[in-house]
């Protein structure tokens, strides 16, 4: 048990840190939150910079164009980038962290050659079309259907919660190809060009006022069969295979960011006098413990993942993922509630620091598995309690 960098890790960290310090000051300022074309350009430029420095696809396998690094190396990248204030992965998220790895694992050689390099170079942006209005927590209930028509599928239905849909080139789509098969069966995974006729994107305004998400309406969209990754009706497994790439690093950068925010909150409280309030002070102290421990939990989970990866085991999401997600979602909300307490009445001003974060934090106990579902998973899959028949 140790928390120290190996000499190789220290060397990697050192070189990375130097590069970040050289590179970040040369980046243009972040564009306005709702200027999506500018955000796309900004995020892609950052990905291009990573690519040129040899950091693109750090954790992707070498044969997919990546660097073949393990989870620990990936964690160092996330940690250092966040500490240095580097841009968030942004528009690159789905391509680099979901669609890309899926294609790398399940795609044909031709599919890999077509789709992976543009992701790594920051040239093509992907979005995700999994969720549907009627299939929220219950993803297996999705209804968008694809009917085979010669060398194509004709896809009709609608998707929701699709980030970056308005600027994406491709959409990884989960559709029902066998309407008679029950639930998880009968689904297929398709790569859909977002400029195909019949695709309509409607931005979805969140309660934070942002247009981060969109609804995507599909009206007989023609998608070549060659865009299907994996076998027909095997889409559930294909889409889940990427979860095995989740090697404990999800939200790792965010935890680093939360720890920095907490420090800023304490200094802001000191500056505005809120620090005099012992209740608030102890609340911030408790959050310090919380995020310190969450960071340790990340390190523990990534250490496990590194071990599995080195052993060549197909990493299955372990104890760590759900446990971490459940607690982190809650802690993040607590953090921004404490921020509102530090701000006092200024928390009612939407332009203040932390106000938008307070609002967007509300999604954390809902998105990517509600806290209720996470608790079911922990109880049944980890603790082995009998099934509550909730699915």
């Amino acid at each position, binding site marked *: 048990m140790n928390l120290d960098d190996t000499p190789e890790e220290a060397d990697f960290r050192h070189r990375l840190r130097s590069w970040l310090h050289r590179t970040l000051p040369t980046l243009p300022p972040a564009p306005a939150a709702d200027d999506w074309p500018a955000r796309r350009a900004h995020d892609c430029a950052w990905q291009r910079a990573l690519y040129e420095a040899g950091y693109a696809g750090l954790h992707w396998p070498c044969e997919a164009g990546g660097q073949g690094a393990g989870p620990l190396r990936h964690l160092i990248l996330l940690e250092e980038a966040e500490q240095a204030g580097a841009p968030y992965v942004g528009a690159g998220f789905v391509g680099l962290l979901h669609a890309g790895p899926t294609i790398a694992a399940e795609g044909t050689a031709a599919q890999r050659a077509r789709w992976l390099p543009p992701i790594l170079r920051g040239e093509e942006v992907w979005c995700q079309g999994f969720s549907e209005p009627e299939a929220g927590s219950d993803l297996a209930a999705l209804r968008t259907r694809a009917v085979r028509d010669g060398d194509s599928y004709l896809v009709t239905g609608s998707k929701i919660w699709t980030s970056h849909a308005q600027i994406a080139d491709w959409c990884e789509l989960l559709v029902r190809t066998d309407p008679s098969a029950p639930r998880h069966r009968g689904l297929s995974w398709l790569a859909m060009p977002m400029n195909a006729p019949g695709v309509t994107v409607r931005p979805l305004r969140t309660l934070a006022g942002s247009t981060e998400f969109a609804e995507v309406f599909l009206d007989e969209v023609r998608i070549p069969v060659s865009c299907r990754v994996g076998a027909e009706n095997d889409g559930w497994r294909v889409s889940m295979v990427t979860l095995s790439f989740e090697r404990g690093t999800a939200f790792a950068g965010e935890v680093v960011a939360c720890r920095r925010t907490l420090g800023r909150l304490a200094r802001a409280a000191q500056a505005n006098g809120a620090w005099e309030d012992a209740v608030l002070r102890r609340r*911030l102290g408790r959050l310090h413990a919380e995020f310190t421990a969450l960071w*340790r939990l990340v390190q523990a989970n990534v250490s496990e993942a590194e071990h599995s990866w080195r052993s060549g085991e197909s990493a299955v999401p372990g104890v*760590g993922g759900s446990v971490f997600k459940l607690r982190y979602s809650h802690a993040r909300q607590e953090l921004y509630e404490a921020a509102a307490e530090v701000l006092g009445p200024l928390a009612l001003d939407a332009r203040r620091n932390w106000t938008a974060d307070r609002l967007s934090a509300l999604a954390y106990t809902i998105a990517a598995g509600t806290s209720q579902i996470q608790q079911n998973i922990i*109880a049944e899959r980890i603790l082995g*309690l009998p099934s509550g028949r909730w699915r």
Partner: protein
Amino acid sequence: MDFRLTEDQRLLRSETRRLFTALFPRERLRQSVEAVGEDFDRALWRKLGDAGLFSLRLPERDGGAALALPEAVLLFEEAGRALLPGPLTATHLAAGLVPGAAEGTCVVTAVDRPGPAEHLATADALLLLDGPRPRLLPAAQLSGLLGALPDSTDSTDSIDPTTPLHLLPRLPPPDTTRPIPEAAASRLLLEATVLTAAQQLGSAGRTLEMAVDHAKVRTQFGRPIGAFQAVQHLCAQMLVRTELARAAVYAASLTALPPDVAAAKLLADEAAVRNARDCLQVHGGLGFTWEADVHLHLKRAWLRAAQWQTAARAETALAEELLADRRSVPPQTIVNPLGRNPERPANRQ
């Protein structure tokens, strides 16, 4: 970095569990619960000494295993799991400082401020961590201290039936004690806090296990109660508390840095107390009886939460850290003094 237990550490843990189960099986626990006012089990204490619980971190030439705080934490986690009685932390800290502590032939208790002292009537020495240098009150003076205590501090009314307490209204003056110049109280305090947190972690893990085991077999309304979401979610939160505390306690054992230690104590206290509470809730009326072990975990958890760094102290210290350190202990600059530093056992000769 590899924040997993090594093969040796895993083995140490499983062997320790086996050993503690043999030395202190449930029947012995229940005997000790009923043995109010009876003699402290010195035979068990010597066996724990033989097992290396106290000498673990001494150099081999002093009869120790030359292991470090992370290994001690694994042993103390198992001790908390088994609800081992006695002033384990204090005697472990006294090994190398007080003759006989390492071997378990001497029982040492400790305090850092006025308040409750555990096993004071049994102890052969009292370790005082109330200043920069530890000091020691030997057995002879101890009986004088006990004689001077008001009646109301009689030991038999500790809330924890397995831990007799005396409430010390003030600490003995310096002229009655012997300073231990070679040791730093601040370091001993950090270690005591981590080792106490480790016991809390062990207790939290055990009450989680008890709750899950019960939820699998107890049926109500025609189903095991573990099939009800309400019970499932109680158990899930117990696991989350335990695993978060585990990460914090293990990290604190590696770094021994004040913020890591404070986080470990705060989260382990909370895990132990709240898991015991939830375990009781899952057990329903059956958990409310004296015969069930749930209350022993709860009461010991309350007791340990009041030792060393309380929640109020930990939160306050952590808040101050936020201002003190611009980057709040950036993970990548952490060094590992106890894991790497070979000078510590030498300090204790």
